[in-house]
């Protein structure tokens, strides 16, 4: 697994959406709906997470989409160990942001 990509708020939203149901493969538009991200933003994020080895993707089973009469979907899910890495990374982000919010508490009178 290579380096964790930069955790922007959008990347964090995607990781949280995937972590909500780590065992369930999710497809692009499904994730976009949940995170509120447009496809133009979502796919580069998914590509970066995939490049980092955090998630992996696969095409939908032909039987499923042929029965439904629609194009096949590309599903994304955590790679082995990816969910745990994502949990740790998000915990780090939460710690850092809470520490920063304590340090940067506004002081009255200025």
């Amino acid at each position, binding site marked *: 697994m290579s380096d964790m990509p930069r955790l922007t708020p959008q990347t964090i939203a995607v990781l949280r959406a995937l972590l909500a149901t780590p065992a369930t493969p999710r497809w*692009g*538009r499904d994730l976009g709906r949940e995170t509120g991200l*447009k*496809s*133009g*933003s979502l*796919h*580069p994020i998914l*590509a*970066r997470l*995939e*490049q980092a*080895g955090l998630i*992996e*993707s*696969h*095409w939908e089973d032909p039987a499923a989409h042929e029965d439904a009469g*629609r*194009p*096949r*979907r*590309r599903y994304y899910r955590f790679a082995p160990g990816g969910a745990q890495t994502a949990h740790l990374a998000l915990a780090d982000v939460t710690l850092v942001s809470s520490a920063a919010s304590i340090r940067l508490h506004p002081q009255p009178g200025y």
Partner: protein
Amino acid sequence: MSGHSRGTRVRHALGVAGMIIDAVGNAVPTFVLTCLAVVFGYGMTLVLAAMGGMALAVAAASVVAIVLLKITNGGAAPRAAVRRGGPGLLNLAAGLLPGTAGVRYREEWLGELYDLRADGAPWRSRAHYVLGVLCAAPRLAISMRLHPTRAVD
């Protein structure tokens, strides 16, 4: 000075020479590093400008394509333009991606466009989707060329 011995003058001269050598020794690496930083910074600026230019060009091309499709489809157009032109523009965006990634994302984007239509999304939403993909494609292409994607099929 006339009171100084020859040995003292030699020591002074050696001291000055040492200072000059030190200064040159420090200045040369600093100069080289500065030159490298300037060249690298200039190169990065060019790369960023090229990326921005490419994104603008694709976005402008897509707008022109939609307008042309609207004109050629005889006025009823935006809906028909997006229905007929959307897949073509997604093909254009996928064409920027390297190797098999283009095929993969083309199919993925076309599937999402199909789902948007199936969900009853208005033509504006679909046009917005296509434009979003077009604008993101150059960034995705650069990212994929720099780092190959791993996938499980």
